[in-house]
């Protein structure tokens, strides 16, 4: 038997395939999932490719089983992932909370489609941004990334797994119906090179309590089968992992779970600033929608309007400093009725305008340009 790894070169992939290949390159060796449009091709690619590299794929009976399985697998030290779309995320949210509470690194891909409910299964939506942040019950911080090209879909998977492992937290990897099914060329570097990008999780030292944090507030993770005699529970727990149902224990644990992310938010933030430096109007966007925005910004510049684009690659924790630092007016272009708009308003000291489409398709560059013209008064 020989493992079959990707060779260096150019590939013509859909976002779904790039997400799967990116995950495998980033060291993912365990996938449990349940098919749902537009993410199903991720499962199909994983089913084909994981056993080729000695990994494991399982199609579970539903999304709840899928996320439970990857949390279990992650405790064995595997980099584990599932992929779904809105309806599946809705089902997974309870266990996303379990992964947050028990500090288990997992990557959950959500290829967003038109919603609520079954919505527009084959088309794009961006309505799950707040769900990515607040989907499970309770007060917690989570990491969410969102690429906008097929190359980036591949590359950003390394960040997704590295951040999940570094901070022992679920990473919600947002895609959308456009990216999932769109094809572009992807360059895959030689294996030696991509393997250098992989950051492994901190492993618990003998004698260290399983939830005893290091200075960075992240406890190194003990693994199953190595004699740590771990106990993990979704109940509020102490540093041994034992339930401790007191207000004091809750205060301590929940503060740390939030702070371990917030204290490192600057390391987690990733944005693209395009022509923002001298801009009078900055369009904030992300994912598939940002493709139209960038085209519109270029058109606006040709007309002499000082427009720019701020593309959020990290959606959560919200990269608020990048809003605060500009004195331009903002337009938030998103395929929902206004979600990130509210976050931008929270931090902007200037005017914030909406540009919404309910999903199904991204704005055309001309629609964005029209809004830029309105806001800039030109």
């Amino acid at each position, binding site marked *: 038997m020989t493992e079959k790894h990707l060779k260096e070169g150019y590939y013509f992939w859909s976002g779904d395939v790039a997400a799967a290949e990116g995950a495998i390159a980033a060291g993912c060796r*365990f996938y*449990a999932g349940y098919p749902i449009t537009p993410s199903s091709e991720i499962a199909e690619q994983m089913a084909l490719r994981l056993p080729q590299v*000695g990994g494991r794929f399982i199609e579970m009976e539903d999304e709840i089983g899928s996320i*439970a399985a990857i949390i*279990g*697998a992650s*405790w064995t030290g595997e980099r584990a992932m599932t992929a779904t779309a809105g309806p599946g995320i809705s089902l997974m949210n309870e266990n996303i909370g379990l992964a947050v509470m028990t500090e288990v690194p997992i990557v959950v891909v959500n290829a967003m489609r038109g919603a609520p409910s079954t919505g527009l299964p084959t088309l794009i939506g961006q309505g799950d941004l707040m769900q990515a942040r607040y989907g499970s019950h309770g007060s917690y911080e989570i990491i969410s990334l969102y690429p906008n090209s097929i190359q980036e879909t591949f590359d950003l998977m390394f960040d997704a797994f590295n951040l999940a492992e570094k901070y022992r937290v679920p990473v919600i990897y947002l895609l959308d119906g456009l990216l999932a099914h769109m094809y572009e060329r992807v360059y895959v570097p030689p294996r030696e090179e991509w393997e250098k990008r992989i950051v492994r999780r901190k492993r618990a030292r003998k004698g260290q309590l399983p939830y005893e944090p290091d200075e960075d507030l992240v406890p190194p993770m003990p693994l199953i089968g190595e004699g740590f005699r771990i*106990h993990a529970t979704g109940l509020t727990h102490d540093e041994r992992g034992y339930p401790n149902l007191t207000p004091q224990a809750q205060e301590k644990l929940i503060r740390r779970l939030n702070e371990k992310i917030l204290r490192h938010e600057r390391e987690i933030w990733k944005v693209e600033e395009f022509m923002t430096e001298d801009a009078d109007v900055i369009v904030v966007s992300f994912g598939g929608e940002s493709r139209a925005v960038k085209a519109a910004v270029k058109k606006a510049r040709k007309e002499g309007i000082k427009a720019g684009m701020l593309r959020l690659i990290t959606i959560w924790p919200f990269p608020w400093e990048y809003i605060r630092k500009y004195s331009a007016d903002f337009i938030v272009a998103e395929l929902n009725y206004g979600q990130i708009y509210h976050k931008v308003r929270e931090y902007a000291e200037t005017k914030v305008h909406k540009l919404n489409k309910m999903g199904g398709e991204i704005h055309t560059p001309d629609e964005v340009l029209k809004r830029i013209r309105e806001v800039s008064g030109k």
Partner: protein
Amino acid sequence: MSIMEDLRREEEKLLRTERLPHVWCPGCGIGIVLNAFLRSVLRRNMDPNKLVVVSGIGCTGRAAGYVNVDSFHTTHGRAIPFAVGIKFARPDLNVVVFSGDGDLFAIGGNHFINAARRNHDLLIIAVNNFTYGMTGGQHGPTTPTGAYTTTTPYGNPDRPFNIPHLAISLGAPYVARWTTYHVNQLQNSIHKALGMKGFRVIEIISQCPTVYGRRNYMRSPLSMMEYFQKNSIVKNDATFEEMELTYNGKIVVGEFRSVEDIPTYEERYEDIIRRAQNEGGD
């Protein structure tokens, strides 16, 4: 020192004794089942560092909190898929799901069905006390027809699951039912199942005097135990028709199915990995 004494001493090491006394009510049968489980593990000479116990939510769900091995108290109903993830990722581990009837068969029923169908290499210890104990005694998927609970104040109109029926129909290679009265048979059954492979299911009828017994004319722990003693009939290899379990009726117990050598999901996947790496060049 005798073997039994040895066992008892070693058993203490498999308990998180600093957490005792446990949360279960006086006379609750879960402790008896846990006791039998730990003794079986010790009799098998299993490496405790390679043993994993996964529980869901509810009274029985707390079992994971008392065993001094890698142990997980997960979300309601999801113990089986969580365990599937562990076992599939690390097939060398012995993974046991220790959970209750509501957790495994109501909210978690679909996982039970599909994991059994796929024949994952898991031992399922299903403690059936006929009720949702931790939430105060509502009726569940195993509450016998006619029984009184807080949500069946006029008697339960539902028809309950017959767990061995379910497990056997799904092809589970080992299926047994005991009550907490049958401490020795239970221990032997778990001991045997631990030595087998595939999706093994042991249902243990257990007493909940606090919220079930007292609404069904069995107020004290002992009266529930006496009920098990009087009404249970050991019938190994019983047919489907014979596996009776009814309200105020017979409790047919025994080892109902024991089949070796059905390939597990994990074994079949090893073959997938071989084929994926050998076929079609690269």
